[in-house]
Each structure stands twice: as C-alpha cells, then as structure tokens.
C-alpha cells in the first residue's frame, strides 16, 4: 500500500525537523523518500504531524494491573464503551480493560507502549493480556529487584553468572529490558522492613541497593541490551527522599556509556523529588534533582500527578502499604515468591491537599527544568493519573497561563515549589521530543520508532491544530486537539480517522533474545526445585504464546 500525507506541518526531532511543511511518503508500512506513482494522497494541510506517540512507562498489562481491575469495579462506571463498528467493548477509567487500552492510545495518536513491571512469574499472564491489546506495539520489562538469583550473584560478586541470569530471564519471560523497583526493598518487605537508602543492606542477603543497581547496569551494558536499566529507586514518595534520588543517580557516574544511549533510566522521578522531613514540611526539590539529571548520562520519565481519583500499583509493596495506612482505602499486596511483591490501592489526589499540590507541581517542574532530550512524559499510568490525561499534561507544559490558573487553587504551589518562577513553555518540537523521540531513543528503537525518516515504521499521528498559528494561552485548544487525533497511522495503515477507530490490527510484542551460557542451569534447577511453586519447564513463556512476537536486536 502506498500513501502520501501532503502539506502537513511536521515535527520530527530525531531528524531535526521543526515545524516544516512537507509530505510524508509511506510504502508497505515504512516511510520512504519518494513515491513516483500510484499512491493515495491525503491532504493534511495546516495540521500537526508527528511520529506516533511512544509511552515508555505505563502499567497496562500484567498481574497487578488485573488485580487493579478486579478490586475496582466502581472504576468501570466512570468509563465504558459498548461493542460497535466491529470494536470490542471495554471499561475502566484508571484501570481500563485490554481492548479499551489499545483504542484509547490510538485515539491520542500513540502507537507504542511499555508495561514496565512484569513479575517474571506472571510473564505468561502479561503476554496473554498484551496479545489482547489491539493495534499498538508493546514491550514488557521483567522485574529484577528482589530476585533471589540476582542478590545471590551480586553477593558472590559473580558478574558473569548475573549477566547470564539476566539474559536467561529476558528469554524466559519474553522481556525487553531490566526493570528494578525499590532494589532490595521488596525482599525486605517480606520481613516487614524496607530499604530506604542505596547503602542499606537487604536483610539475609549480603548486598546493598547500590550493589544491585551497579551490577545490573554493568550486566545490561555488556549484554548490549537496547534499553538501559529502568530504575524505580528506593524510598519513593517520602518527604526528603530527593537526597536518596541524588545518590541513586550517582551510582552510575563511573560507568561509561558504550551503547550509544544512556546507562540508566530513572522512572517517574517526580515521586523522588521531595524535600522536608515530614508531611507538614513536605516540599518540592525538583530543581536540585533536575540539576543532577542534567549532569549525568541518564534519561528520565516524569511520572506526573494529576488531580482526581486513580489507582496506584507498583512492584513496591512497602510503598503501597504505607499509602494504604494514610488513605485507609482498600489495598492488595501480592507476594511473588522469589521475585517481587507488588501492591495496589486507590488514591485521590486532591487540589486541597498541600502534599498533592506539591506533587502536581514537582512533576511539571521536572519537565521544564531537565534538558529536553532527556525527559519523557509519563504519569506512571495509572499511578499519577490515567494515560488518557496526557493531553492535559501537555497543555500544562506548553502554557504558563494554564499553570498559573491551576496554581491559584492551593497556595502550597507558591510556598513549597518553584513552579511559578519558571516561565518556560515547551513548543511542539519539544513535545515531540518528550513523547516520541526521547522514549524511542531511550528504548534503543530510534531506527524504527519515534521518527519520520526513511525506513522508520509508518506510525504517525496527525492532529487538527495548526502549530504555526499556535497561541500558548489557548490551552483548551491544545488539550482538545491532542485528546483526539485527526488521523492515526499504524504501520502505514489508517487505524483512526477523525477520532474514530476504523481498523483494528494486532500490534507487535517486542522482546530480546540474548545468548545464555548453560552454566546457569545447575543453579536454576536447584532454586526451582527448592523454592519455586512451579517447575522450571512450566516457567518459560513459549514463543508461540505471543500472537505477534518479534525479537528486537540493536543491529
């Protein structure tokens, strides 16, 4: 199939294109230089054209995501859609069901999303859910944080075996990258404790959080994985935790980048940017965290908080418990054997709460203060708010007027954050960076995703707004235009037209398949026999369980 999108205003940061009027040529699902004849032409004159959105961190499938759906039937009252025009029904506002998840992303012009915290033992479940999320391309990051194998090899300083295990688990779970959540903390949680600092030791294992991070980063680098270690650090959400965040960022300062990308990705950094020593003195230290990020070879995603009712779910069991003790709302904790311990609980971010107002502002501060080639937009869906609210967030990044208006509602924003002192407004080029180029680059997929150059996948979003006549004070217009794309193309096919899904295709699931040395087998056999509730042979997710699995390599 051949298609030309004509006369759109294109933003494509990976190719340095900043608001140029140009044609995009598509052939057989890829972008090509020129098409001489036989192409269908669509005029998108004066419309905003960007690569399809790329969400690097969004809890859309897996064990705790499904727990969230089960424990929040009332969430389905707030958003549901019935079966029509060949589309499946779905429900859920903060925890949407699988089909709805795909449709909602496509509606916003997003074409790729990562579910970033897959307990290895729930890998099969996760992939079966990912199979059911239509249209968009997906990836899953298995969790390595409280893993007994990891801690054993780190304690023994056996880096070869660690690397071997990392590779084996990626293959076993059909995972894409190494995710670490509250390193050591979730194992400590099994003893009703936590790990609050990078140099705190994990009970019963002779390792610290710092050692877990450093060694996994080294393993990741020598395996040449496309994405770096994806880290949710220690002490998320506590007053004064920014100091831990600064130390965490520094754990990699002596490790050189070898793979043409960052060596560490820090996720939902907003939740690690707090000062003060109690909830009463709680304030934003986003400025200091941003300074540190700008100095080091890392990328970050923001994890913005938006006001309203949402569901929190992380592999950080102790954090979810402490949140539950504050809100006293329903709460679930799961113990995943040797691996991790996620929790789920609803939360309501209130405009009246000074703590929530600081969180809201801190996330926006990070987006405005960190170099625009390092930031990625997320809400840590659904933890800070559902991904369907990204357009609101983009409007906040782009309009000082909008932020000022919001800021009137709670004076904590002026007293406890630096947000009102920042005049910067992001432009469409920078928005394309933080929602397209940066996540694709950070994931090591910049050859095929996140840009509109030759040979890229023809995943494209067209929005009904003229960026050249753009006025940042008209924030409602930005929000509205970005909420519902005019066109979304996936692999060169029009999947959404004027806000309506017109075609449902199965998206890919990318995974990596590094080499594994058989030296790992005796340890695997021993641990599975001794400690696991499942046998080794039932653990491995088979290739054909992925409806459209694709092995991704850096070359």
């Amino acid at each position, binding site marked *: 199939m051949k298609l030309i999108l004509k006369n759109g205003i294109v933003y494509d940061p990976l190719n340095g294109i900043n608001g140029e009027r140009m044609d995009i040529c598509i052939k057989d699902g890829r972008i090509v230089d020129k098409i001489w004849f036989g192409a269908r032409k669509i005029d998108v004159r004066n419309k905003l054209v960007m690569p399809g959105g790329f969400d690097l961190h969004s809890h859309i499938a897996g064990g705790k995501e499904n727990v969230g759906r089960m*424990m*929040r*039937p*009332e*969430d389905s*009252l707030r958003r549901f859609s019935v079966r029509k025009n060949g589309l499946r029904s779905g429900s859920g506002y903060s925890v949407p069901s699988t089909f709805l998840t795909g449709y909602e992303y496509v509606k916003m012009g997003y074409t790729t999303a990562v579910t970033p915290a897959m307990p290895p033992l729930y890998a099969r479940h996760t992939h079966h859910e990912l199979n059911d999320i239509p249209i968009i391309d997906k990836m899953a990051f298995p969790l390595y944080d409280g893993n007994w194998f990891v801690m054993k090899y780190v304690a023994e300083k056996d880096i070869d075996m660690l690397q071997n295990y990392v590779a084996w688990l990626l293959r076993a779970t059909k995972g894409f990258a190494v995710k670490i959540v509250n390193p050591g903390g979730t194992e400590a949680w099994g003893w009703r404790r936590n790990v609050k600092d990078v140099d705190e030791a994990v009970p019963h294992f002779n390792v610290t959080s710092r050692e877990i991070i450093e060694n996994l980063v080294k393993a990741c680098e020598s395996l040449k994985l496309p994405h770096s270690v994806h880290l949710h650090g220690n002490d998320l959400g506590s007053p004064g935790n920014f100091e831990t965040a600064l130390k965490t960022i520094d754990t990699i300062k002596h490790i050189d980048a070898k793979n043409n990308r960052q060596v560490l990705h820090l996720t939902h950094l907003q939740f690690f940017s707090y000062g003060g020593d109690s909830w009463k003195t709680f304030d934003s230290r986003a400025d200091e965290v941003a300074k540190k990020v700008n100095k080091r070879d890392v990328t970050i995603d923001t994890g913005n908080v938006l006001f309203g009712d949402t569901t929190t779910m992380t592999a950080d069991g102790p954090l979810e418990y402490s949140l539950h003790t504050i809100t006293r*709302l*329903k709460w679930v904790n799961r113990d995943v054997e040797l691996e991790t311990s996620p929790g789920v609980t609803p939360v309501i971010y209130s405009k009246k709460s000074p703590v929530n107002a600081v969180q809201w502002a801190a996330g926006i501060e990070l987006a405005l203060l960190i170099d625009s080639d390092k930031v990625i937009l997320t809400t840590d869906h659904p933890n800070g708010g559902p991904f369907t609210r990204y357009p609101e967030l983009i409007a906040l990044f782009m309009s000082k007027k909008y932020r000022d208006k919001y800021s009137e509602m709670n004076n904590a924003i002026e007293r406890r954050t630096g947000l009102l002192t920042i005049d910067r407004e992001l432009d469409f080029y920078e928005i394309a960076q933080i929602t397209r180029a940066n996540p694709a680059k950070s994931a090591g997929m910049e050859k095929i995703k996140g840009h509109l150059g030759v040979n890229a996948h023809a995943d494209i979003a067209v929005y009904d707004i003229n960026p050249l006549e753009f006025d940042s004070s008209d924030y409602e217009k930005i929000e509205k235009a970005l909420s519902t794309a005019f066109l979304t193309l996936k692999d060169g096919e029009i999947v959404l037209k004027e806000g309506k899904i017109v075609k449902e295709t199965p998206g890919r699931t990318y995974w990596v398949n590094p080499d594994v040395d058989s030296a790992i087998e005796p340890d695997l056999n021993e641990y599975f026999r001794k400690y696991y509730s499942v046998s080794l042979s039932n653990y491995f997710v088979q290739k054909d369980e992925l409806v459209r699995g694709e092995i991704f390599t850096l070359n």
Partner: protein
Amino acid sequence: MVTLRLKRTPDLCLDVEGIIPEAVQGKTLEEIEKMEILNGSRKVNIGDYFDVTDEGNSLIFEGDLSKVKRIGMNLRDGEILVKGNAGMYVGAFMRGGKITVEGSVDAFSALNMKGGELIVRGNAGDYLGASYRGDWRGMSSGKILVEGDAGKETGCFMCGGVIIIRGTVDSYCGVKMKGGTIFANKARTRAGASMMAGSIILNSTPELLPGFFFERKMEPEIEKLLELEKELIEGEYHLFSGDHAERGAKGKIYVREFISF
C-alpha cells in the same frame, strides 16, 4: 401523565434505563411507544412490551414488573409510581424526585442514592441503598422507606441520608457505614459490621458483633427519625459504640431488646 402497562412478562429482563419523567415529558403517546429500551442485549421499543396511555398524574408503571430493571434510575426530579413489583436497580443513582412502589423491589435499589425518596410498600432485595460494587462512597443523602423486609447489606458504605425498614432487615445492615441513619424494627445478625460512624436503631436483634461496646441506656436522640417513626421508636434503648474492630470508629447502634428469631 403517562401510564406504561406491561403487556406480558418478558423471557429476558427488560431494561428501562432513561424512561423517567423528564424524558417522556412533552412527548406524544406514539413517540413514547417508539422510545428504545433493552430486552437482554437487544434494542426494542416501549410499544413492543407496554400499552402506553395518558392516564394518571405521574409516570406510572403497571403490572408484574419483577423482570423490568432500572425503573427510575438516575431520577433527578418528578414522580414515578409502580403499581406492582419491580426488578433490580429501582431508583439507582437517583438524586431527587420520588419513587413509590406498591409491591416489592429486587436487589440494588436506591444504589448510591444522592437524594430524593424511595418508598416500597412490599419488601426490598439485597443491597438496598448500598454503594456500587467496590465503591467506598455509598448513599449520601435522601430517604428510603420499606414497609416490609429488606435484604442483606442494606446501606452498605452509607455516608448520609435515612433508611427505614419497618419489617426485618437481613444480616450486615449498615456494613462499613460512615454516616447517616438506619432504622429497622428487627435486624438479623452482624448489624454495623466495620462501621466507622452513623447510627443504626434496632428494636430487636439477636446479637451484636464483639466490636461493639455497651455505653449506656437512653432514648435515641435522632430527632428527624423520631418524627418519622414515632410509633415504632419508643422507650429506652441500649447504646453501643463501634465497630471497634476498626481504628477510630465512632458508630452508634441503639438496640431496644435482644431476641433470637
């Protein structure tokens, strides 16, 4: 105004969501006959199942409507009269207006009620005036009166308003409640389980959960309710506080006498 008389009992339940006074107001009988309702998952017209006449001075449903769901759901204003039994979700999510049912209602009636009045001359099913499944923010205002009996978990997660059961309420009435008042002539076991606040007045019940502590004997001091149910609430009651299985619970249960039944 309009009477909808059920022609025959449907095999699958009918769902009349949206057929409320404000929707039929100003429509001709023919237009009302053409309004869409659901039979199972299939769209049908009102005229397929109901005779539509302009009798009465409110919106009236007539016949054995025990297989008709969602009568008066989302009602904001106006009156609905049901001459007969009604199915599930009568007056669910209602914010105002008045619904009177001459027969009985099924489960989930007045679910998450925010205002208005529901009067049931017969019995009510389970989850009367309860919160929607999973929600911790239940009925916040309004009044429910049941002249007969009511089912399990009546007023679950209730935050405000009044529920009166003149007959017997089944177990777990007022479970998890955080406000408002429930009165029942008789209550089966475990009233007020995990309640945090609000009041439950019971003329008789077999026993309370161990999380309730006896405070003193007194007359219930809820004026509004006394006015409403003067004949039934009478004499001295045992006041209990609880449910102390929950931290900081400030609920009250008044019990006149403990009898097994």
